[in-house]
């Protein structure tokens, strides 16, 4: 009995630590984003004079007239935000599409061979920094520097391997008999694809898509190197704190904003996520 209580108490303790560990930094960020300039460096969790100034500054850096010296170099956050939305969404669609067809071929026809597929992992076996120099050189000659198309292509290319491996698992789990049955009942290959395989693989597509979207959304290293004026959100967030000055509160607001969108997307598709993660267990 005592043991049970102790075990329970211990469990709760661990849980609480884990929750505090993950939640406190987020709380701090939220609190910071509502603090006035003078309060940024005080460690209180509740802002004394809550203000929306940081958020206003995000959207129109010149509006408040203060910090002009720093903010003149920054554009309103709407620009980077929409850029990142376009980049992440497009890269995700491209990567998932290519990934799906590659995975399908690999799963059904064992093509391009069991070993070849491992080469797609190659770009993930080395630290990304290794690729920075060659990419910069190629992108310069291709006029892709400071161009969102450049980032779209780069993200799609580097994440496609995740799409392949995630989706291959899902497609492997779809019995080929379902496709064959559809064929025998007169469906064309395209109808088989759209009416049978894609609907059944949908959770996999959602999981792969979300994963890739988040990677593209948060990528900083290449974005920093490959952009100059047309910066994505991740770069913009980092810009609020520079050698010139540190806009902690504004950065916190930007960070919050940039994490809310993936959160909303995640929430909206969580139903698919759940079926996605348990797909292997439900037969038929």
């Amino acid at each position, binding site marked *: 009995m005592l043991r049970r209580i102790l075990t329970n108490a211990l469990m709760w303790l661990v849980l609480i630590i884990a929750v505090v560990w993950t939640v406190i930094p987020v709380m701090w960020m939220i609190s910071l984003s509502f603090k006035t300039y003078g309060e940024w460096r005080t460690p209180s969790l509740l802002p004394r004079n809550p203000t929306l100034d940081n958020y206003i500054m995000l959207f129109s850096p010149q509006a408040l007239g203060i910090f002009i010296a720093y903010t003149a170099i920054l554009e309103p956050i709407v620009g980077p935000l929409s850029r990142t939305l376009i980049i992440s969404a497009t890269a995700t669609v491209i990567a998932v599409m290519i990934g799906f067809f590659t995975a399908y071929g690999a799963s059904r026809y064992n093509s391009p061979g069991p070993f070849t597929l491992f080469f797609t992992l190659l770009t993930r076996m080395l630290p990304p920094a290794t690729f920075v120099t060659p990419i910069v050189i190629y992108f310069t000659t291709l006029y892709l520097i400071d161009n969102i198309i450049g980032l779209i292509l780069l993200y799609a290319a580097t994440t496609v391997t995740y799409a392949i491996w995630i989706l291959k698992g899902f497609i492997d789990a779809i*019995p080929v*008999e*379902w496709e*064959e*049955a*559809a*064929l*025998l*009942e*007169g*469906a*064309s290959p395209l*109808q088989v694809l759209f*009416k*049978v395989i894609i*609907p*059944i693989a949908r959770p996999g597509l959602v999981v792969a898509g979300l994963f890739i979207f988040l990677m593209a959304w948060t990528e900083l290293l290449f974005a920093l190197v490959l952009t100059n004026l047309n910066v994505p959100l991740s770069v913009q967030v980092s810009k609020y704190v520079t050698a010139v000055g540190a806009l902690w509160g504004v950065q916190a607001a930007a960070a919050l904003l940039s994490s809310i969108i993936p959160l909303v997307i995640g929430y909206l598709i969580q139903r698919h996520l759940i079926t996605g993660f348990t797909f292997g267990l*439900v037969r*038929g």
Partner: protein
Amino acid sequence: MSSRVVVKLENVTKRFGDVVAVNNISFEVYRGELFSLLGPSGCGKTTTLRIIAGLEQPDEGRVYIEGVDVTKMPARERKVCLVFQEYAVFPHMSVYENIAFGLKVKKLPKAEIDKKVKEAAEILELSSYLNYKGGRLGLSEQQRVAIARCLVVEPKLLLLDEPLTLVDAKVRERMRRELKRIQRELETTMIYVTHDQLEALMLSDRVAVMRSGRIVQMGTPEEIYDNPKDLFVATFVGSPTMNLVEGVLELEENKLVLKTPSYKYILSKEVESNIIQSLLGSEVVVGFRPEDAEVRNDGVLEGTVKLIEIVEDRKILHIKINEDEVRVFVDLLAPFTEGQKVKIRINPLKLHIFEKKTGRKLLKGVVSG
């Protein structure tokens, strides 16, 4: 080729690497017929079906459907439907959508689809399940949905790959009858694959018994049961299996005798010696079915009852005779006890004699009358 022939296989062979899954198979299936492929696991039944459906290309041989060579024709153009051994139903669609699938892809008018789906659902007793998701159904409902899905597209030929194996025993029997009824009513030509000999015998107009990629024997269920061509068919068909005793045949005072190393069995009191002559002295396996022997006082073989089993409405006596054990059917109420000494008589007309070396049937029935 007669127009009665729906499908014809001509010397079809299929290899997977070193495995010869189907080895030089030929057969014809007639319109409205229920034809079974019967054989143990791995003998090539599924492969044969898949070749007919066009899901697998034969390495050799030709396939004809209604007289047309379809060997190279893509699966979806053959108008042949297959109910798979497993994974019969689309999990993401309702029963209704499942049944309607083949009609929807053909872009039939909605009203017509609706009518056909409901008809098929009626026949297969699925009307109350129409809104269930495919993945939520029990196995027997799933199989029925799969059959309904095939029926609505009105195939020239319906192939069924062990459709009842996964269904629990109680439902299986009813579905077997249902299937037969549907087949008769709609006059569908069916090829039915099973490894269950009883199922094949009960359902089929004709049966092809397969072994290691070959057809060993083809015929009506009666022919297969009463006149097995070799030891394999003899033992594969029938339950409990045929009794077998090995030995050498000899004639003693016009009695046919089977000599084993240590014993002599008198198989019958009279023999038409001219049939037997050529078999004398050769090593054989003698077989008889449990229902072809009786326990009676004037029996020629004496043994001890070792075990009494009750199977449905009959008893099976396991009788030890010398070193061999044979099974004999008796009435459910027949008063036998274990350990009792009994005499049996084998119906000499129903004796099967096989060559020991090859398993080939040498003779059936050693005496007339």
